[in-house]
Each structure stands twice: as structure tokens, then as C-alpha cells.
């Protein structure tokens, strides 16, 4: 079995890309490594060179400017959970990041890793999907922006190829008008337990409380984070009210088809949870602009 022979620390993104080319076929990007270490042990992947981008200054920041929040993808979940701007502007993301793993995992695991590992219920990816995040991918041919919701291919696999390109930063537009975000989660216990269901929502409203945009995401009910589009459409153009949110949540529960899982619970039970969590998330998000 091949094993890791070199663990390299490039100084910047350019150098990281050069190393990936130099060790083509052997090298793989690593950020927090909390998943990768397990995959290497299980022989799911066997890179002989690790190109570590977890400390690149270009990928370690949070900025708020020009109506958007930009997050360096090597920020850890602990850093994002505790960041005052994230808490204030996108509480759903702050709460999602606080739900990942345990403190010892959150101190090392990064947002880039959560995205590229592509678990459908990833607790930072679900809120970022609801927030309409865009990701910058930098490869040998240059940089491009892709919507986060298009990056998951299937369970455990994303369209980002960690042997060729780097997910460098995440951009989230900050609505100029009234808006609210919320994240909800149910797990067997509050730490180190995968979610039975999690849900995140973002609502934008006119001054009179009419919903003008909505994104509702629930997971894991499909192989990628699931957008409850019927529920979203149902909300548009209607005035925020508890009844409206109950009806939209029922639509979300109806369109979600979680499967039976020995780990997470029966499909029927989790379908009810989708409805309940979406309803609670909608009410909480709306309370932020009511």
C-alpha cells in the first residue's frame, strides 16, 4: 500500500497549484485533514504527497464589503462559529458551523473540507446552500466561480478535484433589504452525532412583510443537499405569518423523500422532521425581520 511520504506546506495558492502539477497523480490537497486521515487509513485514497493549504493567508479571512461576505475556505468551523460578523449577518451559518463534530474537530476542520467531502447533511454546507453561496475554484486554467449547490456530485464526492484545483473562497451576497436566516438540527445527542435531519432557510421580505425570495434546504433526504422548491415557491408573494410557514413547511415535508436509515431513523419519521424543522427555521428567520 502506498503511504504519505511528504507533507508539504506551500506559501501561497500559486505554489500549491505548482506542487499539484509537479506531483501529478501522487499529490492531493489537504486542509483540516480530519476526514482525509480516516480515508487514508481505510485505504479509500492513497496520496503519497499532501499539499497543505490550511494556513495560506489568502484562504484565512472573513471580509464584509460591497454587499457580500467573503470567507477564506481554510477558516475552521470554530472560527466561523465564533465570528461576530457571521453571527450578526448570517446566524444560520454560525449555528451550522457550531454543530459540526466536536470542539476538537471544529478547531481543525475547515469549510473547504466540509464542502469537498460532500456529505449531504454537512452542517456548514446546508446553511451555505440556503444562503446561495458561490465558491471560487482555482486551477491551472485560472479561477472560476461556481454556485455551491452545484458542487455536490453524490454522497462523499464533489465536483472539486482535490488533485487539480483549490476551493479558495466562499462568497455570500448580503441582501440589502429585510431578511433572516436560521438553521435547525436534530441529532441523537448534541455533540459528535450526525444529524437525523437538519434544515436551513433564508428569507427576504419587502417592507410590508411580503416574502420576495426564499431558499429552503433540508438534509439528508437526498444524495446532495435538498432544496424544497415547492415550499419556496409557495412562500413568494405572500405575507409572512405563522400559518403561511406551517403550510410551506408541509409542502417541504411532502416533497422530501428521506430513506429509511438504520443510523438516522425511518423515512416516515424523518419526513415529519423535515416539516417540523423547516417550520421552526422559517419562524425563526422571519423573527429577524418582523
Amino acid at each position, binding site marked *: 500500500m502506498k*503511504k504519505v511520504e511528504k507533507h508539504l506546506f506551500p506559501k501561497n495558492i500559486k505554489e500549491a497549484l505548482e506542487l499539484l502539477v509537479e506531483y501529478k497523480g501522487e499529490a492531493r490537497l489537504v486542509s483540516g*485533514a*480530519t476526514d482525509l486521515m*480516516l480515508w487514508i487509513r481505510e485505504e479509500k485514497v492513497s496520496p503519497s504527497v499532501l499539499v*497543505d493549504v490550511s494556513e495560506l493567508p489568502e484562504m484565512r479571512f472573513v471580509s464584509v464589503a460591497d454587499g457580500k461576505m467573503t470567507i477564506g475556505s481554510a477558516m475552521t468551523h470554530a472560527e466561523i462559529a465564533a465570528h461576530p460578523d457571521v453571527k450578526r449577518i448570517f446566524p444560520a451559518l454560525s449555528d451550522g458551523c457550531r454543530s459540526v463534530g*466536536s*470542539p*476538537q474537530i471544529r478547531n481543525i476542520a475547515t469549510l473547504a473540507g466540509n464542502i469537498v467531502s460532500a456529505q449531504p447533511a454537512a452542517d456548514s454546507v446546508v446553511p451555505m446552500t440556503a444562503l446561495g453561496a458561490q465558491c471560487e475554484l482555482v486551477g491551472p486554467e485560472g479561477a472560476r466561480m461556481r454556485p455551491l449547490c452545484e458542487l455536490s456530485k453524490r454522497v462523499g464526492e464533489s465536483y472539486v478535484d482535490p488533485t487539480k484545483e483549490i476551493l479558495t473562497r466562499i462568497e455570500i451576497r448580503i441582501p440589502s433589504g429585510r431578511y433572516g436566516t436560521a438553521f435547525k438540527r436534530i441529532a441523537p445527542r448534541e*455533540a459528535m452525532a450526525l444529524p437525523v435531519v437538519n434544515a436551513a432557510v433564508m428569507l427576504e421580505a419587502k417592507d410590508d412583510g411580503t416574502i420576495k425570495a426564499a431558499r429552503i434546504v433540508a438534509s439528508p433526504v437526498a444524495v446532495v443537499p435538498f432544496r424544497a422548491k415547492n415550499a419556496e415557491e409557495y412562500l413568494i408573494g405572500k405575507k409572512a405569518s405563522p400559518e403561511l410557514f406551517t403550510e410551506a413547511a408541509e409542502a417541504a415535508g411532502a416533497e422530501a423523500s428521506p430513506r429509511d436509515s438504520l443510523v438516522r431513523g425511518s423515512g416516515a419519521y424523518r419526513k415529519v422532521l423535515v416539516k417540523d424543522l423547516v417550520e421552526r427555521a422559517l419562524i425563526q428567520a422571519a423573527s429577524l425581520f418582523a
Partner: protein
Amino acid sequence: MQELKCVVNGKNVAIMIDPSHSLADVIRYDLGLTGTKKGCEEGECGACTVLVDGLPVDSCIVPAMKAYGKSIITIEGLAQNGELDPIQEAFMEAGAIQCGFCTPGVVLSAKALLMHEENPTKEEVRDELSGHFCRCTGYLQFYDAVRIASEKIKDRKNKKQ
């Protein structure tokens, strides 16, 4: 083999290591500091917790080379001049220890918490220690231990002043 330079328990270390190894393995087998325990080896149980630049991490899933240039504190690094750290004393006094397997990790997470928050709330203690499995104590003694340690730290500070 690759050279790892870091500070372990206040001492400079420069050793050749296998870069495929975890930080837990290097601490235990290359440095001989067996106070750091390996439990699940998949980042679930918290037994292998050490502090890297003051932050608790699961050393079983951290590639050892990630410690390059960092300051590592293991359970062996807490006692100073033969005197236990107030947190270690507090764990004994509160009976927050039985078989001892989870203890080094829990003590280090408590240490990290008290380093940045002198008077943690019960919720903060619960959150910060949530990454540890303990099959003996039932966890409640951890709250007492952190409270006692917090008092001890404040007492020592006052005495110094």
C-alpha cells in the same frame, strides 16, 4: 522521513518522523509521551486530545507534520516543578476521574477553556467538554472539577498579587 520542528511542553523538538503518522502516534511512539491516549482513532472519543497553540484537537486525526512550528501541550506538560496544575488537583478532588483513560484529554480541554474564560458558565463547560467520552464518571463531576479549578486559579492569582 521528514523533519518536524515544534515546541512540546515548552521544549524545542526537532526529530525525523514518518509524515504518514498521526500527531498522536508521534507523541506516543517518537516522543514517548504516553499520557496521550488513543481510543477510537477516528476523532470520536476525545481521548487523544492535546493542545495545539492553545486549542484542543483530536491528535489521532491530525497528520503529525501539521504540528510544524506549533506549540503542543500534552498532559505531561501541565505539572510545573513537580506541582500539579490546579486543574489536575481539581479533577482529583471532584472525583472526576476513575479509570483514567479519558482524563488526560478532558483535563486538557478544561485547561484550554479556563485559559480563555476564567469563570465559564455551565453551558460553556458542557460545550467545551462535549467532545469527550467518559464511561466512568457520568460527566457531572466534570462540572465540579472545572468550578473548583476556576476557584483555585483565582486564589493563586490573588496570592501572587
